[in-house]
């Protein structure tokens, strides 16, 4: 009764894990520029995963940049005024943003669908405006400098910090996939009446998911602040932190951990490559990719591969049974 899904053992996960380990190791030996790209890929990857964790319940959030930016400011304020050590600002920001999301979620999670999506979009803008105007605390439009950045900005060390944070986020996402939460969220997405009839406390589950995913976005925002050493209203709440993770998840495939991971690596690296040829044009390419994926590959890359694997397995089992359906 431990997990909902019990699939037969396959070799694919191990191949996948080995490949992931190799990819994670590569930037360590490849030098500072690949490490910069890898840190950016990991940043977007974590945001993409956290967004996916909430969409599994059917709740579409456009508020990633809001909680991301809030996390950055929580880190800067915590470090400046409370003396929180650099690496611990990640935890500090996760808790602060998680609590803020809990309070806001208690109200806005009564909304569904388009209404919820619009409110999250508005929230991000509200956070930005507050930070922009609360000059005495946040430095206003100029933003604020962190007194000290994590590992004094050492490239290898900060890459490892991002890697550890990403591992934690992947772990939380997989825990979501393989615990009671998974069924509850899937049921809510599918049909709320049936979910409630099966005993699911819809409000409690949505609130938990919203607080945890926002907390993750807050921690990622704090790590961004540590990497760059400053926060400003324009950069920290940039709408790209909402749109790019969304595009990555759509490309990789929704409703699972590995879709966002694959999407982030592909789009992150491709985007970086494109920047060399058409500065800012990479955003245009992202847009085109989103449209193409939605039209021709609605389940994303992971969904496509999984579909192929399942089909080939089914034909094998069918032929083993002597062709009986």
């Amino acid at each position, binding site marked *: *009764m431990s997990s*909902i*899904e019990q699939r037969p053992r396959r070799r694919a996960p191990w191949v996948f894990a080995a490949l992931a380990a190799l990819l994670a190791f590569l930037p360590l030996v490849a030098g500072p520029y690949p490490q910069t790209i890898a840190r950016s890929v990991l940043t977007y990857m974590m945001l993409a995963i956290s967004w996916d964790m909430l969409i599994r319940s059917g709740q579409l959030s456009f508020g990633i940049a809001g909680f991301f930016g809030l996390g950055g400011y929580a880190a800067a304020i915590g470090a400046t005024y409370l003396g929180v050590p650099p690496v611990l600002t990640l935890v500090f920001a996760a808790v602060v943003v998680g609590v803020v999301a809990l309070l806001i979620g208690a109200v806005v999670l009564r909304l569904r669908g388009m209404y919820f999506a619009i409110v999250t979009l508005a929230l991000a803008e509200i956070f930005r405006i507050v930070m922009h105007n609360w000059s005495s605390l946040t430095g206003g439009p100029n933003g604020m400098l962190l007194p000290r950045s994590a590992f004094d900005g050492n490239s290898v060390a900060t890459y490892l910090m991002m890697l550890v944070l990403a591992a934690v986020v992947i772990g939380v996402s997989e825990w979501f996939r393989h615990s*009671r939460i998974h*069924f*509850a969220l*899937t*049921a809510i997405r*599918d*049909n709320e*009446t*049936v979910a*409630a*009839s*099966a*005993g*699911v*406390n*819809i*409000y409690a589950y949505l609130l938990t998911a919203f607080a945890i995913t926002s907390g993750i976005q807050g921690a990622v925002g704090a790590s961004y602040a540590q990497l760059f050493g400053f926060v400003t209203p324009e950069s920290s709440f940039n709408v790209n932190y909402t749109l790019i993770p969304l595009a990555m998840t759509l490309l990789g495939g929704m409703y699972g951990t590995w879709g966002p991971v694959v999407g982030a690596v592909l789009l992150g690296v491709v985007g970086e490559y494109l920047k060399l040829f058409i500065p800012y044009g990479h955003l245009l390419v992202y847009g085109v990719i989103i449209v193409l994926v939605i039209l021709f590959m609605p389940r994303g890359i992971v969904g496509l591969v999984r579909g192929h694997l399942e089909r080939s397995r089914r034909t094998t089992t069918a032929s083993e049974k002597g062709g009986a359906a």
Partner: protein
Amino acid sequence: MLTVENVDCGYGRLQVLRDLSMEVAGGAVGLFGPNGAGKTTLINAIMGINRVTAGSITFEGRGIHNRPTHEIVHGGIALVPQERELFPGMTVLENLRIGAEQVPHARDRGEETLETVFGYFPILRERTKQLAGTMSGGQQRMLAVGRALMALPRLLILDEPSLGLQPSIVHELFTILGEMKEHVAVLVTEQNVRESLRTVDRGYVLENGRIVLRGTADELANDPEVERSYLGL
């Protein structure tokens, strides 16, 4: 066990149920009536899905009207809704297990209850690994009943279980419900009055949100009005 007293219920300004009273004391109780009579509205009121604007609903002595649905399920009432009641992309076994997963008192006794469910529906044991969405309509309905039982209810509510099923399957389903009512109280809404009268002990006839007739299964079967309107004799 379940008592509905003087309940008003509706949607916005549309009042569907008016001063409705009924009860389930045990065994199997039928709720009959044409489309739009208010059967599903009453079920949804009991389950906390629809808001009750007047009156009270008590289950085992505790008031449950306007409580959240999951609390009512945790409290011992399970519902087999009218349609879309399964998770089609999950296997039969997964569908059954999740029925117990969200209900604290049923969670630890899942394996035990699974055997009980397989006892009622042997076909489900043979198909544990099949995806729910690929089964026939009748098998899906049985799986839905099985999943509701996994929550270990003391009262099982079925909303039109015969809907869209061929007559032989309906017959089988009501025979199984007949066995089931010895262990769990059953409340079933139906348009197929003939089949359900074999199984239920008592019944209510609902029209325009009011109970117009109540009695034992025999009394209803012999009532000239029921015969004319529902049995088509």
